[in-house]
């Protein structure tokens, strides 16, 4: 039987939810950047695409950082 994950520590749920919301919004921006990049590629302006890739990469790095910051830590057992 699969045991459900224990609930997050108090105060962590809103932080994870906020991270998730911001992450989804930034993903939307990345998708938009990809469509602009495709348009530039078809228009034969590849130099501009590198800038878009850099912004997209920064968003991705931000997401990785957020994932690392919100890593699950073992709970402190209090007496």
């Amino acid at each position, binding site marked *: 039987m699969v045991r*459900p994950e224990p609930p997050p520590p108090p105060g962590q749920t809103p932080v994870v939810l906020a991270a*998730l919301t911001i992450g989804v919004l930034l*993903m939307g921006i*990345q998708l938009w950047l990809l469509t602009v*990049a495709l348009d530039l590629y078809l228009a034969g*302006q590849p130099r501009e*695409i590198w800038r878009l890739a850099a912004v*997209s990469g920064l968003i991705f790095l931000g*997401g990785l950082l957020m994932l690392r910051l919100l890593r*699950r830590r073992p709970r402190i057992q209090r007496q």
Partner: protein
Amino acid sequence: MGAVSEFPYHWDADELVSRRELLQFAVYTSGTLFAATTLLALLGLIRSQERHDVRPIARVGEVPEGEALYFRYPDPDDEAVLLHLPGGRFVAYSQKCTHLSCSVYYQPEHTRLFCPCHNGIFNPLTGDPVAGPPQRRLPQIILRQEGDLLYAVGQVP
């Protein structure tokens, strides 16, 4: 028991996706989008470094002023059009419409390049879209004149 055999999943055994797992999935998707954008940048870089052949197209006298000559460049499957514009200037463009790749044709009576699929119109002087659904200009073919021979030497996307 009959209901259990028809739908044999218990709530406890069902896999729940936690917020963290969803966040992880979002970050992976973000990485995929970044990779796709970088791939496009790389493809664009490779395409910009491509060299095209130098190929004779026509003699100057073969295309009267205000007329067009259809040829293929840079590959045998790539249709292109050479225009002898009023005033004596020569220009050449890819015939592939930037909307949905139909062939565009020169209409001397209207002095325009016309795509019959969706009524797209391009300016023959610049290749810019003037009307209809196309948003990008036609790829221009670079010409060089040597004596009375016109050569195609490259393509500007």
